[in-house]
């Protein structure tokens, strides 16, 4: 029994670590290609006369897009696993095919959106298209291979009660949608509020009059998305990874703790539900304290 518990702890920690990496790269990938919510400003920029060299990657929201890549990757991996291939070969194969699908969607999104902005005189820059595609594919590859590995561990390896009953592609869809919604709600704020409007005053919400008037110049000339990812890799990406890692860690941890403490399965699940509620209440107070500290430290709004 103790060996199984130790094994479960080891796999939980591994999953949480992989989730941290996957979450980080998921957010950075959406910055390389300007996906999701901040992309509304890139779309608006040409309309207000701000011709730019951003990569207008509007595949869809991040959640369906990542649901797609992870489901495809896990689906292909399952096919090769079923043929007796080793997971160390099958999972990268799946992630590779998902990366190709990703590149195709990204290229069509850039070309389609730029062509639809004809009347705003936004040209289609071929070097922007070609230079961003490979970073998009590689960042996405790492995120997708991470999720696929998590799905593989949960569907096939995880010992005992924590093993999932869902097949691997469905797990891929579930975790893809989840990581996409975390990535777009956490990391994108750093890109959308800070880096996209860097010539605007720091420390305030971006006013409606600034909308569409994005920053187009960077430290070394005209800005493209590679400057953005360099900036966001310092804070936005890691925090996204932290969020996803913590979610997986605590989700599994509370189940494990319940099963170690409780006698019957019902008791164990009830304990884990109780622990989950305690964590959620604790998070509310952490947020309360954080906001309180910030309000005191930053003070009231002093701009115009």
């Amino acid at each position: 029994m103790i060996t199984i518990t130790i094994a479960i702890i080891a796999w939980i920690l591994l999953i949480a670590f992989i989730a941290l990496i996957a979450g980080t790269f998921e957010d950075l990938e959406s910055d390389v290609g300007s996906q999701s919510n901040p992309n509304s400003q890139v779309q608006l920029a040409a309309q207000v006369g701000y011709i730019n060299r951003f990569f207008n990657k509007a595949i869809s929201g991040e959640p369906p897009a990542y649901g797609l890549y992870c489901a495809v990757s896990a689906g292909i991996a399952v096919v090769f696993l079923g043929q007796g291939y080793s997971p160390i070969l099958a999972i990268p194969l799946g992630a590779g095919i998902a990366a190709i699908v990703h590149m195709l969607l990204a290229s069509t999104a850039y070309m389609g959106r730029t062509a639809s902005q004809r009347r705003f005189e936004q040209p289609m820059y071929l070097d922007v298209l070609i230079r961003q595609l490979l970073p998009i594919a590689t960042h996405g590859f790492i995120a997708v291979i991470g999720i696929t590995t998590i799905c593989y561990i949960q569907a096939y390896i995880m010992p005992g009660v924590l093993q999932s009953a869902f097949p691997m592609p469905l797990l891929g869809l579930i975790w893809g949608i989840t990581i996409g919604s975390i990535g777009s709600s956490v990391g994108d704020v750093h890109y959308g509020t800070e880096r996209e409007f860097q010539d605007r005053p720091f420390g305030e919400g971006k006013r409606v009059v600034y909308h569409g008037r994005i920053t187009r110049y960077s430290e070394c000339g005209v800005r493209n998305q590679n400057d953005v990812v360099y900036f966001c890799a310092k804070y936005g990406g890691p925090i996204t990874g932290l969020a996803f890692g913590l979610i997986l860690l605590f989700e599994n941890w509370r189940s494990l703790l319940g099963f170690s403490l409780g006698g019957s399965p019902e008791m164990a699940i009830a304990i884990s539900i109780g622990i989950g509620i305690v964590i959620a209440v604790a998070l509310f107070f952490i947020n309360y304290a954080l906001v309180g500290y910030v309000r005191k430290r930053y003070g009231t709004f002093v701009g115009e």
Partner: protein
Amino acid sequence: MEVDIDKKKIDWFSQRNLMIISIVLSTIIAIFTSLPAVVKAIGLILAIVCGADAVRTIAHYGLGTGVPSIGMLALGIGITAALAGMAAPLLFEEGAYLGVIISIILAAIGGCVYGLVAVNVLKMKIPVMVSGMIQLTIAGTLSIILASSILAGTWHLDMVLNSVINTGWIAVIFIMSAIGMLHPYNACLGPDEKRNRTLVLSIELGSLLSLLLGIELIFNDLIDGAILIALSGIIWVISYVVFVKLSMKQAYKVVGTGLIKTLE
């Protein structure tokens, strides 16, 4: 496929005609389950084109939550309606082909109710909501039935359960059909969006789904899978090239590189 684009300038490919043609053709293809996978893939592509066209008409009015939501809604209803139709052969010994018809009728009812609810209860100001939702849910249902049929050889629920749902490939079919319907209009969004470009993109995504299904199929049925991969690969290459050319033609300017205009 190149021929289609030229013809689309004629009224033949107006939204109503395209809808009727694609739904009728895909339904006929879906009914005959013994057809080779390639033919089913054509039906799948047609269903996705039909759905993408419906997304285009609805999302044109602005939804408030972005284009993707409508595609997910269509597949959400589509998958329950498709499951209900797939279960029909378990109910009747005779006339198993009725399953597809039942699916389509259920999907139409579902789409109609959702459209009416959205217009009358939620007060959405979209005049084409009801007809668009019907078209969209039928397309979603047909794409799920046809894609399952490619993998399992038939769409009867007992076969589909084993080879599509329990392996988890239903997730790939679900999300890829949704993206195939919502991505074309989302990717071409803008004031100068052109219908032919949007529809070519949906053909590309439909053939991409067929290609992925082919990778799964080739391990079960070598010949069928190989032909499916080859043909959907050809359709994919043609439609991608056509899309790139159309985009470059319709863009304001295509430049290799260059700086942006100054602010003033």
